[in-house]
């Protein structure tokens, strides 16, 4: 009992700096306890609940930087699609949403929205919205969408607490809740306004894992059922559910191999797998993939293996003869493996079981995408992770992780095996792709929490037992009895108590550093909406570049409602959501050829591009240009990807044509094709007349730091329709064909 209270103490220090007051109040428990007339257990509960409440609130408010600094708005690219669909869902109802054919994107192909998205996020937000409306709060759907991610981050802390409690003890649970509340790796995808699938998916992921571990620990059908529903929610929310459906069989497999197979596992796995699979099939986007796709076959294999195992167990029970059983085992295993292999082979050969997708391959082999799928490789968040971003996103968790693994191995159980496997696999994936740091974050937090909790518990026990022995000399309960006996064993170590105190202070210092680091990262790096750009002005004041919205709103107001806009796919979602105009390609990169066509148009000469644009009914072309402001993620810097993706489908486009000695440049030394392709012309049209920086020649590109090579750009088939105030977005109108006479 006392041990538990110690753990509570330790957590407090992790969550915030008021730890010392709690600490001091707790060093004299006898006095305060009697006067308050609360039993120790009640007091513990009170403190635990209040800490959890604080963590819950903290997790929410730390994500509000962007709202305070900018405004309540949707961030980035994908969230705009989610927002648009959510608005549609709330306005038109679920069935309309489910059957929605969107003709505003992928012109002229269109997109079946209901069948090509994970509806979990939208349905969740719409549900929250209707509940709030039912309670008669006249909120706007945008506010609900903006705050969905922080709300689910708060809920994740609660799940983390229970998970930690299940893995280790309630102390570890509290530390885990506190760590995950402010961990930058998670905050990066869950700040207010970042209305993306990941926001709710991490909650669903952790919930599913927690419920599954609980089911394995208890062997209860109810928990397994709950876990299946958690899995269903996860499937409805994010494509990352594939991680669950592969990790859980892997875990079951490991338990089988290590001889930890039990009835509990059998119940938990079978119930979760079968029900989870049936539920997941209800999501149209997933459909029959659970039985047809290569990525899901591991789970099915383990399922059958589990049955074989159970069968063997039963036979073993019936046959008391070991020799006979050995023979039977051999035959059965051979048969089972043989049948499995044949089934898989036939399935794959006949095309019933689809092979692994490129995305899945690129996870297993980081170099795969670069060679085969440039469209995946072109996304910055799909790049392999740099060490610095690990440090940036995890900070001390990076050091605590191995320590936590040590503790896990020291007290090995079904649950700790699970978290170790989750931690190790997700760390691998986090190394492969930057965005998957997100998946690793809960595991990092949980394992680190175990390390923190266990260390601090041991240290405080050292400190307290000594003082207790000195002061009261009495022992209460078995735990402190053990501790004191342990302490008496360790009496021989010199400066033990001081050393423990020093180590405690060190731990607090580290945790404080973690808190400040997280706050700093959140406020500096992860709270920018990326729609509105901010920079420091000459006098230290904040300058806002609101060019994106300027352009999108211009499109929305001043172009015909059926105008088709061609742009690189990055801006597709934003154009449809904010500009309310039809786009050729967007961020749902489902049709590589279509994107390649746009890439080809952008990299062709104007007259060739005009033919392509005419064939696609393009009315306006939108390019993003950072040469005036020094905004580096513009279309010129992305241009090589357009060339690559275009060239991947249309061999007319050759990357070397745009390079000079393998070097990409836009100045006088640039390749002639580069200087005259559509993208170059549209980006730099009349830029040569503009003086961007004092002391530099006109036409000085600030994003690339060079004077441009082609200053005399004439457009024949297009005309400038609009350019934003900082030139970041430029929109051109495609002229109608000339009259023949």
């Amino acid at each position, binding site marked *: 009992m006392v041990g538990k209270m110690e753990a509570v103490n330790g957590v407090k220090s992790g969550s915030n700096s008021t730890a010392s007051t709690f600490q001091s109040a707790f060093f004299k428990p006898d006095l305060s306890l009697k006067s308050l007339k609360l039993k120790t257990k009640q007091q513990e509960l009170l403190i635990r609940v209040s800490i959890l409440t604080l963590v819950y609130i903290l997790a929410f408010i730390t994500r509000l930087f962007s709202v305070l600094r900018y405004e309540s708005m949707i961030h980035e690219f994908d969230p705009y699609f989610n927002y648009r669909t959510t608005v549609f869902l709330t306005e038109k109802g679920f069935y309309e949403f489910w059957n929605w054919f969107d003709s505003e994107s992928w012109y002229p192909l269109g997109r079946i929205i209901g069948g090509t998205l994970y509806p979990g996020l939208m349905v969740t937000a719409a549900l929250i919205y209707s509940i709030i409306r039912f309670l008669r709060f*006249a909120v706007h759907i945008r506010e609900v969408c903006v705050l969905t991610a922080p709300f689910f981050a708060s809920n994740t802390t609660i799940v983390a607490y229970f998970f930690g409690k299940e893995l280790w003890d309630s102390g570890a649970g509290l530390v885990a809740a506190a760590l995950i509340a402010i961990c930058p790796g998670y905050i990066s995808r869950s700040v207010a306004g970042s209305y993306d699938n990941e926001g709710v998916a991490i909650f669903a992921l952790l919930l599913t894992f927690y419920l599954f571990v609980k089911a394995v620990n208890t062997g209860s059908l109810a928990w397994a059922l709950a876990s299946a529903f958690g899995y269903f929610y996860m499937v409805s929310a994010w494509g990352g559910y594939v991680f669950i459906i592969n990790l859980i069989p892997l875990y079951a497999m490991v338990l089988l191999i290590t001889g930890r197979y039990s009835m509990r596992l059998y119940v938990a796995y079978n119930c979760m797998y079968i029900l989870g699979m049936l539920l997941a099939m209800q999501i149209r986007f997933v459909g029959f993939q659970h039985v047809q796709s290569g990525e899901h076959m591991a789970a099915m294999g383990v399922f059958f293996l589990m049955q074989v195992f159970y069968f063997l167990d039963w036979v073993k029970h019936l046959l008391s003869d070991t020799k006979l059983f050995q023979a039977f085992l051999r035959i059965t295993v051979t048969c089972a493996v043989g049948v499995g292999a044949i089934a898989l082979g036939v399935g794959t050969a006949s095309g019933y079981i689809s092979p692994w997708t490129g995305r899945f391959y690129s996870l297993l082999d980081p170099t795969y995408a670069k060679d085969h799928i440039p469209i995946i490789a072109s996304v910055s968040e799909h790049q392999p992770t740099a060490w610095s971003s690990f440090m940036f996103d995890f900070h001390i968790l990076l050091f605590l992780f191995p320590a936590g693994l040590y503790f896990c191995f020291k007290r090995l159980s079904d649950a700790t095996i699970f978290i170790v496997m989750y931690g190790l696999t997700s760390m691998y994936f986090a190394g492969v792709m930057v965005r998957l740091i997100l998946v690793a974050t809960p595991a990092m937090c949980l394992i680190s929490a175990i390390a923190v909790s266990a260390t601090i518990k041991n240290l405080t026990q050292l400190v307290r037992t000594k003082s207790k022995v000195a002061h009261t000399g009495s022992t209460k309960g078995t735990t402190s009895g053990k501790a004191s006996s342990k302490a008496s064993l360790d009496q021989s170590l010199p400066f033990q108590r001081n050393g423990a105190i020093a180590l405690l202070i060190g731990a607090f210092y580290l945790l404080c550093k973690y808190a400040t680091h997280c706050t700093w990262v959140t406020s500096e790096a992860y709270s920018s909406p990326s729609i*509105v750009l901010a920079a420091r002005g000459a006098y230290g004041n904040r300058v806002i570049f609101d060019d994106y919205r300027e352009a999108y709103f211009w499109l*929305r107001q*001043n172009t015909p409602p059926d105008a088709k806009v061609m742009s690189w796919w990055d801006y597709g979602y934003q154009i449809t959501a*904010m500009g309310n105009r039809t786009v050729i390609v967007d961020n749902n990169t489902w049709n590589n050829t279509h994107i390649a066509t746009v890439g080809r148009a952008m990299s062709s000469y104007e007259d060739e591009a005009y033919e392509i644009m005419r064939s696609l009914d393009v009315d306006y072309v939108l390019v993003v240009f950072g040469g005036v402001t020094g905004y580096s993620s513009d279309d010129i810097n992305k241009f090589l990807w357009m060339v690559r993706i275009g060239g991947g489908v249309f061999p007319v486009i050759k990357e070397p044509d745009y390079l000079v000695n393998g070097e990409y440049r836009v100045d006088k030394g640039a390749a002639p094709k580069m200087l005259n392709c559509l993208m170059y012309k549209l980006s730099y049209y009349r830029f040569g007349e*503009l003086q961007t920086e004092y002391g530099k020649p006109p036409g000085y590109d600030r994003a690339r730091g060079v004077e441009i090579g082609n200053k005399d750009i004439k457009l024949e088939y297009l*005309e400038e*329709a609009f*350019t*934003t105030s900082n030139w970041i977005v430029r929109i051109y109108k495609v002229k109608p064909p000339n009259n023949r006479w």
Partner: protein
Amino acid sequence: MGFRFDLFIVLIAILSVPVLSDLILSKVDRRIDLTSQVVRITSTLKVENSGNDPVSEVLLAFPEHQEKNLAYLTASFREGKGKGKGSTSSLPVEVVHPQGMPPALVFYSVSLPKGLGKGESLTLDVLVVFTHSLKPFPKEITQADFQLVVFQDSGHYLSPYEVKFQSLSVKLPDARIESYTRLENTKTVGSEIKYGPYENHPPFSYSPIVVHFEQNQPFAVAEQLVREIEISHWGNVQVTEHYKLIHAGAQSKGEFSRLDYQARPQVRGASAFRHLVAKLPPRAHSVYFRDEIGNISTSHLWTELEIEPRYPMFGGWRTSFFIGYGLPLQDFLFESGGKRFLNITFGCPMNEVVIDNLIVKVVLPEGSRDISVSAPFAVKQWQETKLSHLDIVGRPVAVLEKTNVVPEHNQHFQIQAAIQQVHDIISRCLSIHDKLEASLRDLSRTGDVQACKAARKASDGQLKELSKELRPLLAFLQSSPQAAQILPKVEELVAKERELQEKLMLKHTTVADSYEKKSGGKEIENRIASQQQKIVALRQEVDDLLDYIDEI
């Protein structure tokens, strides 16, 4: 120009019309202000009666094509002869359709406060405001072009009366004048064109003039403006204004070059406007300006609100946005005699914005009843309900709609809930009367005189309370000008009710007394028969009056 030909036909048509009355305009002085997109014509008319019969109305004539753009018309009357003497008061104006007039003309009749006798004269000041009367010509211009507009009117004052002496001056913005029609006696002084003086023109004289000039003032037109004024119990009036703006000048064609616009915005974008200034009421707070996709970060709030759309507005370009602000409730909501009224401005706070269609929604707190609106000009009205924070049944919304709104319409209007309270009190009195009657019936059944007397005493007290409540309400009605037409009815209602009350009491006493004296049923009936008749008649009258007030 197509319709000049039409005008010519009109001219022929109207020349054959007989003289309407014996009025003569002895002097007409017109000033046309073309410095903004709104055309303001101020005319000073000196009206003289040359006939024998006193005349009580003066007709103003407008060609139909002009009249459809007429946004605002006010005629005020100056007593005394010299300028600046006497007080001016605006006169009621209404559309009339006099017999035998050409169909292409629309007439407005100004009712004079008192008949104009033989030989008498008075001076009328007429302000007419037209929207959409400056036609861009050419209709499409490039970014570098200046915007030229055409204005058409008559050089002679179009009137059903004979005009003795008249002059016209057209005030133009300080810019180039492309061309203008020259009549005799035409001269330009600076940016002003003067026509006249002309003498002795017969009724319906019309000589078209056309002025073609440069006009780069913002042609900001709100195709629709929805103003929502929400009154909160918590001391706040929240105003939200949804604008749908268009630059209604010459359409821009060809390229828009940001480079040119940045380098010389005054030249390469002269016809565009960058921002609009909204003059918010004093003590406005919590101002915001947003559109469908977020804050309009280009706009600013200094001492006044400067709305700068996300992009410069060229001809034909549109934008839409909404602004919101809070106002302290005590500045706009007044209480008098137990009911409250809101007094707030009608139009939009922006200078020189023409509103094609203005909808004002006044959201009253949940549970408000008996709403009445009084506006200084004709508006279309209806009611809606709006569900907002923590509402169960929704808030009543009074909606006013008006087309063609100019800054001149920026006047106060009132929303109140006064008269209905009188109605309420009278209804309650009547229900007490019913109770009294019921007690009498009980008496005839049970013969319990004491219970009957107790019921009467209670009713007496209640009636006194109610009449006390009624007094301040009546006082308010008497003092408020808006209630003028309804006041006599209300007073009649109160008087009738009082009479009814007395009669009923009398009857009650009689019956109770008779029971005490143990008179026979027949005898009692005889005694109250005459009273009963009166009571029934009075009750009928009171009910009728209540219905009448209800309808108002």
